[in-house]
């Protein structure tokens, strides 16, 4: 019974991180129909931005985290203005695939800029908390608790923003029916820009959290992004609540498999689950299969 504690701690922590990474990815997919292959790189940039702010410029921790969000949001905005917007204008029919290729190009570029600026060797993220709480045999490091709380707080804030504010309502409306939104005076392009900024900011902070339990490296965001893809697919692309539930559930499964069968079997187990789910439900667990009329 000694594995329950570690599995829970590890599963909940990675689950929170996956959920946060998935939220940004899913938001962009749901609004723009765009799979942002540079999402993982936004995580990386956030991690490095916080590192630079905190340990090289000596800024206080909250400012460093804000810096990470700002860098993520800025790059998100640039991706929209320089890549996604022109691509969607030029050929909307092929956008779904062309944007994946183009954003991968962006990811490759940004990742190499990070490599040039900081070098390939792993760096320690200074924003860490030491110590742990023990409840009997149950040990919960503060760091993990901070990550879980921060991620849940960010998700709650995003949910509130989307549900309660006018800008959030416009984002949801545009995602559901862009033509109708235009007819009501919603500047759809600006809404898309906001979505990419929001997603970039979430990714930036997520990168800080990820790097605080691992290490900073130029490929920091690759693994969370790949997992986030998996979560999105299982939940049904674009479904936000579903994506978050799936993230926690699959992270727990992954942690369990890793404890029982070894670390290398975690990802294959996830893939097996995805394939099984999609064979039964091609639109994902929470998704609806679109009926295409001919």
């Amino acid at each position, binding site marked *: 019974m000694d594995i329950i504690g570690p599995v829970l701690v590890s599963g909940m922590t990675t689950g929170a991180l996956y959920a946060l990474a998935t939220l940004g990815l899913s938001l962009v997919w749901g609004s723009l129909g765009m799979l942002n292959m540079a999402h993982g790189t936004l995580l990386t940039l956030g991690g490095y931005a916080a590192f630079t702010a905190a340990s090289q410029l000596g800024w206080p921790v909250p400012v460093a985290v804000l810096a990470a969000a700002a860098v993520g949001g800025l790059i998100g905005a640039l991706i929209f203005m320089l890549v996604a917007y022109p691509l969607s204008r030029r050929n909307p029919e092929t956008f779904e695939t062309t944007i994946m290729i183009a954003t991968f190009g962006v990811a490759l570029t940004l990742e190499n800029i990070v490599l040039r600026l900081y070098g390939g060797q792993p760096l320690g993220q200074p924003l860490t908390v030491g110590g742990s709480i023990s409840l009997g045999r149950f040990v919960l490091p503060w760091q993990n608790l901070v990550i879980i709380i921060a991620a849940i707080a960010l998700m709650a804030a995003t949910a509130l923003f989307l549900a309660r504010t*006018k800008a959030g*309502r416009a984002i*949801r409306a545009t995602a559901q029916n862009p*033509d*109708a939104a*235009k*007819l*009501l*005076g919603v500047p759809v392009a600006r809404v898309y820009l906001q979505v990419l900024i929001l997603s970039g900011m979430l990714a930036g902070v997520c990168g800080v959290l990820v790097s605080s339990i691992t290490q900073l490296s130029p490929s920091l965001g690759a693994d969370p992004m790949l997992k986030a893809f998996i979560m999105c697919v299982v939940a049904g692309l674009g479904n936000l609540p579903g994506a978050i539930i799936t993230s926690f559930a699959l992270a727990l499964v992954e942690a369990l498999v890793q404890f029982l069968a070894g670390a290398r079997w975690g990802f294959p187990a996830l893939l097996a689950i995805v394939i099984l789910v999609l064979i039964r439900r091609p639109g994902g667990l929470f998704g609806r299969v679109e009926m295409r009329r001919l």
Partner: protein
Amino acid sequence: MAEPIGSSCLAVNGLVTGYDARNVLTGVSLSLNSGELVTVVGPNGHGKTTLLRAISGLLPVRKGSVSLNGRAISGLPAHRVAANGVIHVPQGDLLFAGMSVLENLLMGAYLDSDQVAVARRLDEVFSLLPKLAERRTQIAASLSGGERRMVGIGRGLMMKGSVMLIDEPSLGLAPIVIEQIYDVIARLKASGRTILLVEENPARVADIADRIHLLDNGAFVWSGEPAVLLQRDELLATYLGG
């Protein structure tokens, strides 16, 4: 057709538009004075919806012009046309399916930051369409066809605008529901609204329309009063299948 700009609320002059290489409209002109209800009738697939989409900026205007209260609005993107005061109640409702009725209505007031005015208009919409007040928290996707149409109209009424474009409000509804919808439209006209209405069946609009344009193959083939059109059996037979 050379009506001086400024005398009419909405003026469309020699409008040409279409999809890809094909022109769907080949030169359409019409004008609406304030408080008028003008109807465009015609068979399906001959450009009625296209006309409204071009006016509201969802489709680019290729030739000709559209102006609202004397200001040119052709060439503006759809959200700017809306900001200028064109209310478009689209075909098939285009509701925000995952949102509640109330949220759909509030989206109609997107451009209005005056909370008091928005609340007042919401009350007006609820008194005109009491069914919506009952269903305010219900998700749009779960409504019946008639209720959805009501939400579409109500959402348009939440906008501030000087002209309302309504696209086939009777489409796909049961006769009794169509009657209710036209009852609402008649009340809108009575309250002084300027309305451009697209409809397949001229008999339905005979009582409320000031003028009717018959659209066939991308151009108006007849214009005049509804009562006259209904007596022209040869027109009805040729263009509207009896």
